[in-house]
């Protein structure tokens, strides 16, 4: 974790060369050929199928079968894919919940509580385009004193440096020390 996966090395690497991974949740009518018909708009619009999770035993409240499709495509093609699916009459429940290729840890140190930790975290999510997966806070001297927090973040593959730069500038704003992970080499 924390290292940029090397191309071709890591089966979990989600993006490469400008592609991004997306998850689409669909509802299919339980009829023969329906799945195949559904996948055509993805390929036709330049998407690459990564996996299909077809929950046959699980029926939605409307009596349909939920299907989860992971695919990758250039970001500017994704809207065309979703539109293509809808044009084909497929019920798209959720689109664009991205899979994140990398996890990194950062430790924040300072007056975390007085500087509104929850605002700090939402700024990290917005400005660093990260998802906070996990957070621990330690304030042994009480919340009015210096405290530390560790956040595990999910970010897109290959975007660690940008995300860390954004987190650092939030830290500067709020007078927090940001302890970054060492990403280079095989640290």
């Amino acid at each position, binding site marked *: 974790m924390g290292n940029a996966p090397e191309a071709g090395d890591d089966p979990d690497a989600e993006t490469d060369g400008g592609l991004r991974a997306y998850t689409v949740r669909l509802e299919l009518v339980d009829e023969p050929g329906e799945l195949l018909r559904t996948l055509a708009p993805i390929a036709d619009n330049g998407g690459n199928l990564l996996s299909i999770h077809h929950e046959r035993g699980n029926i939605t409240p409307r009596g349909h079968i939920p299907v989860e499709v992971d695919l990758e495509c250039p970001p500017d093609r994704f809207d065309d894919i979703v539109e293509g699916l809808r044009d084909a009459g497929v019920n798209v429940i959720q689109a664009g919940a991205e899979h994140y290729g990398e996890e990194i840890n950062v430790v924040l140190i300072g007056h975390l509580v007085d500087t509104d930790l929850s605002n700090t975290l939402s700024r990290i999510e917005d400005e660093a385009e990260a998802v906070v997966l996990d957070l621990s806070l*330690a304030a042994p001297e009480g919340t009015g004193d210096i405290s530390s927090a560790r956040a595990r973040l999910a970010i897109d593959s290959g975007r660690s440096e940008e995300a860390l730069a954004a987190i650092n500038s939030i830290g500067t704003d709020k007078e927090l020390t940001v302890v970054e992970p060492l990403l280079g080499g095989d*640290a």
Partner: protein
Amino acid sequence: MKLAILGAGDVGRSVADLAGEYGHEVVALADSTTAAIDPDGIDVDQTLERKVGGEAVGPSDPDDIFDTEYDVLVEATPTTLGDAEPGFTHVSRALEADRHVVLANKGPVAERYEELRALEAEHAGSIRFEATVGGAIPVLSTIEDCTPQAVTAVRGVLNGTANFILTRMAAEGLDYEHVLAEAQDLGVAEADPTFDVDGTDAALKFVILANVLADGGFALEDATVDGIQNIPGSALDLAAEDGRTIRLIGEATRDGIRVEPRLVPENGPLAVTGTRNIVQIETRNAGSLHSSGRGAGGPETATAVLSDVGRLPPL
């Protein structure tokens, strides 16, 4: 080779002490006020005894060293910042007299690298400075062997005091001030530990590395430096929850120098413990090389000086 040693601290004294073992002769040893000089070789034991006993090193003036017959000037005076004096003048006088120079003093190499290389190019002698980076660890000679052009980055832990403090904080769950006091009692940290804990000492070493990689262009003010004084014990506890720890990590590339507390895997190569140092040399064609060892200490650093002396061509 005939060695003239300037500086009679731990490193200078150890070089004098070990020189014979490496097949070299000491013709002069000076501290800032006096010098022992003998063209046929000084009596090292007696000279060191006088120095340790608080007496004058010898009857001569330190300046007379430059008029002695020597092959290599060993510059082991304390590191100074800014103009790196008087170390820089010592080096230039020796080069202008067509002698070799081996530095243990980081100042001139970190702050005035291009001037040193220009002087070296104009005169017959060479400069070497293995001892300035990582004590006994062969960092610069490894880069030289890989050729600097094929090295893309150098990272690592190059300050034993800061590393000792972070290691103890993580192991005992103690705060910085407490561990610093302990380190001072043990003699690991100096009475004034500022340069070690604020990252300056490590930064000077990574500035030297960046200068070697890029053939000059860097001084201390070009480095981004942050120390360990603001790291509470709780931050190390939190890092450990995810198998990480915090180390004062330096990075040197052709683009710049950065020294900061960073999260590294607890069981990874860079998480050395105690006063141990480590460097990771990232190469274009051979992956990463790691070298770990004692980054400070008189005899340890003296071995780097004497290895340099052994690599010098005959004049």
